[in-house]
């Protein structure tokens, strides 16, 4: 009988409790050590074991047992070093000897609260089910009675407007000699409006992203505008912008974000007199779909010299953006004042709009903004949006799906006849399953003027490992194995900014073709089919009723 002490493993967790179990093959492993070196969380380690081998030689069995010490790669059973399933080990392994496997039975969330600290991570909501956006189909196909357009031949204008648009009744126009002209004497305010591509890159800051990632996105966006003629814009996120970019002609492709921490704004304000172009817009962030009601946090380990200088803070300190914006207290006064101040800083030449997280109360916000002639748009970020760092509970359980939120808001505007005046920007889970153009088109037909992407572009352009099975999701730790969300040069040198830029361009060009492939058979090409809800159908009666679209089966 074994002594009791050798059977008592109650102090240890079994690998079954872990979200990913590392499958390691002894016969394939050549013990090079690359996997253990690359693992961002040290979930595997090289160790030795005693192995008993039975050996027999000759025509008759003559078994003899020998014990020898062998070197193995073993997964640790420490929750603080759980395997995130990123698969970096598989990538570096020369012999396909190691691979993490998702464990559906895991009890990870039961244990990941050591020291009373709830689980924090990056990424997006861990819900691998098919989202509403992916359930939407385009069912109004032009056939015979109204010939479909040719996506390859006809001229397509896949563009949208960002900025407050005057109602036609208020246009300062007069007729002179049979032609319309702008009445200079009317002195009415004509708000700035940008014509942009309807898919934009959402707010991800310098700091949250590594230098090559942010630079790659920025280069890709500039190329799309300057060479490909696709006016894609990108939001800076909260954390300022590289000073040289602020003073460059490329600033017009960027939306500068201001959030509760005001990080980077000292530099931006100082750069104002030297700006040769106006930014595309100013986004005031009041909320984020991934973590509604939560502020931002850039961990101290990510605040290196460059980040500290851009943000105007000391190095290596935690940078918390408070959950509550100081101008959040009253939408009628404080928020309006914020919009006014930002507008004033650029001489009312730049659209200024707020971004909120998806919420049941979005319509209240919207209706208020509809009454504010300086509010240029409303960006709503749904629950499937991503983030660099948040509590798991905020990401998984807080927030509102974007589809019904955007639809409600659009229909509210329709009831007021203002659907063309205040553009709605939808975000949160666009391209979650890789269907970027289809998700974007669906949101547009539900009423969005534009959509914003974040996580998708990280996956498509920089091979982010993250998925809805909690894979990787290490953005908050600064140990991103792909070099996307880290400030550690050892990690980010894995990422080539030129390659990121190339992928951004490829992604948008492909999405553009796909959008035409959606719009052409529906007979739309000249204007974006915003609110063309008769084109949508869904195989779910309740969802069809809720979204006021047709139920198809």
């Amino acid at each position, binding site marked *: 009988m074994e002594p009791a002490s050798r059977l008592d493993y109650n102090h240890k967790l079994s690998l079954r409790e872990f979200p990913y179990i590392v499958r390691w093959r002894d016969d394939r492993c050549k013990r090079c050590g690359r996997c253990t070196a690359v693992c961002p969380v040290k979930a595997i380690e090289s160790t030795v074991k005693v192995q008993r081998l039975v050996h027999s030689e000759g025509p008759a069995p003559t078994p003899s047992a020998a014990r020898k010490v062998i070197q193995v790669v073993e997964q640790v059973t420490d929750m603080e070093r759980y395997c995130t399933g990123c698969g970096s080990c598989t990538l570096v392994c020369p012999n396909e000897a190691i691979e993490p496997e998702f464990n559906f039975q895991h009890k990870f969330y039961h244990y990941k609260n050591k020291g009373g600290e709830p689980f924090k991570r990056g990424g997006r909501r861990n819900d691998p089910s098919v989202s509403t956006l992916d359930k939407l189909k385009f069912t109004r196909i032009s056939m015979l009675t109204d010939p479909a357009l040719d996506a390859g031949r006809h001229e397509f204008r896949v563009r949208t407007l960002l900025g407050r648009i005057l109602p036609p009744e208020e246009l300062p126009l007069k007729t002179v000699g049979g*032609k319309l002209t702008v009445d200079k004497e009317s002195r009415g305010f004509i708000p700035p409006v940008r014509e942009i591509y309807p898919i934009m890159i959402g707010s991800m800051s310098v700091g949250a992203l590594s230098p090559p990632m942010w630079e790659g996105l920025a280069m890709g966006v500039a190329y799309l505008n300057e060479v490909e003629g696709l006016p894609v814009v990108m939001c800076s996120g909260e954390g300022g912008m590289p000073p040289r970019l602020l003073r460059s002609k490329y600033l017009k492709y960027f939306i500068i974000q201001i959030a509760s921490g005001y990080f980077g704004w000292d530099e931006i304000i100082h750069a104002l007199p030297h700006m040769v172009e106006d930014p595309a817009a100013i986004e005031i962030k009041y909320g984020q779909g991934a973590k509604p009601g939560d502020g931002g946090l850039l961990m101290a380990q990510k605040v290196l010299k460059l980040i500290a200088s851009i943000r105007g803070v000391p190095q290596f300190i935690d940078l918390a953006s408070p959950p509550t914006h100081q101008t959040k207290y009253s939408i009628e006064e404080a928020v309006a004042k914020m919009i006014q101040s930002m507008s004033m800083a650029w001489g009312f030449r730049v659209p200024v709009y707020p971004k909120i997280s998806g919420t049941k109360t979005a319509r209240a916000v919207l209706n208020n903004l509809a009454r504010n002639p300086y509010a240029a748009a409303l960006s709503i970020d749904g629950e499937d949006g991503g983030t660099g760092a948040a509590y798991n509970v905020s990401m998984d359980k807080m927030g509102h799906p974007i589809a019904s939120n955007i639809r409600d808001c659009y229909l509210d505007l329709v009831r007021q*006849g203002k659907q063309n005046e205040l553009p709605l920007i939808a975000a949160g889970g666009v391209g979650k399953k890789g269907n970027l153009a289809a998700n974007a088109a669906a949101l547009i037909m539900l009423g969005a003027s534009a959509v914003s992407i974040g996580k998708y572009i990280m996956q498509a352009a920089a091979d982010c490992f993250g998925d809805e099975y909690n894979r990787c999701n290490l953005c908050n730790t600064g140990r991103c194995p792909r070099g996307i969300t880290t400030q550690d040069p050892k990690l980010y040198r894995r990422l080539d900014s030129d390659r990121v830029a190339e992928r951004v361009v490829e992604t948008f060009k492909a999405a553009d073709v796909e959008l035409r492939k959606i719009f052409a058979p529906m007979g739309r090409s000249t204007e974006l089919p915003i609110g063309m809800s008769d084109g949508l159908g869904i195989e779910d009666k309740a969802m069809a009723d809720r979204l006021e679209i047709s139920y198809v089966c």
Partner: protein
Amino acid sequence: MCRLAAITSDKYFSPMENILALETMKEGHDGSGLGLTLKDLGGDFEGLKKYPIMSGISSNDGRKTLDAYMKRNGFKLKREWKPRIKPVKSITQRENYFARVYDYPDSFKGKSPREKEDLLMNTRLALRKIGEPDGSIFIFSFYPDVITLKEVGDPLQLAEFFGLDKDGIRAKVVLAQGRQNTNYAIYLYACHPFFIQGFCTMTNGENTAFVPIREFLTGRGFPGYMGYNSDSEVFTHILHYTSRQLGFPLHYYKDVITPLKAADIEQREDRQALRLMKQSLRPLCIDGPNVVIGFTPDGTCFMVHDSKKLRPGVVAGVKGKYALMSEECGADKAVPARDKSKDIFPMKYDMVIVSPHAKEVTVWNQLQG
């Protein structure tokens, strides 16, 4: 796809001319409806030009309701025209077809034309609201010097049914549409031409941008922007909205429904205005395939296409008489004696405008402004 036949002339002519033109295009309509709108009326109506004419259909009960309503609101019946119905086998006869000439209520006699127009439209809408649920009253137009006839059936048979071949009814502008029903129900209010406050259009093809346009129009807060039993009704309302409500010259209708791309706008003299218009009227952009034929209150007729010209259309004729047709055979029937080399086939940037009394035709090019 519906077939369209419009004729404008400096002399009064019978709407039979339009019907016969439609007959030559018979392959393109299926008898799911005929709509006729006559403007600048002759014959018995020539001396009644300043009085509004209510055109419609009612049951006997509906007629009583209508009479009571009009009396209650101070309208005085001056004259009533009824088509001399000749029963035709394939056409289900309704009880009363009428065009009634009214005098304005006393309280409106000194009012401005716009106020009078609003009164007439609101009266039409009120009667539609009363009569539509049980089908007892259909009112198609209520406006001075305009008569509208609509019924389900084959155009030629309907002409016989209404006795148009024998009746002396004449006009200087007649729009006729032979309907080919597609996505929407066969219904009298879905039948073109559509009319609102002096503006009238008929269309063929489907309007793929119908829902956003409808939502934009209904959001304008103008009571007349309703109905939409056909996706083509929005074309009439866009014309009314841009011309009457916003006061834009007629050719800007083209710039609203098929806006130019940014680079082309820059070439236009009125680029500043166009840029603003394109933004503010973005939801009114159509994507075709459509040809729109219509008239405005002063009797100007026009033809315009979607931005890719996915539908045919021709304007042909001689000074004093022009035909605006969806097919050339219709023009051949309506104005056979003409120089065919001068026929105008408007292209995607063109808007053909025929001045009142068919005096002259101009082709306005959107690129050149």
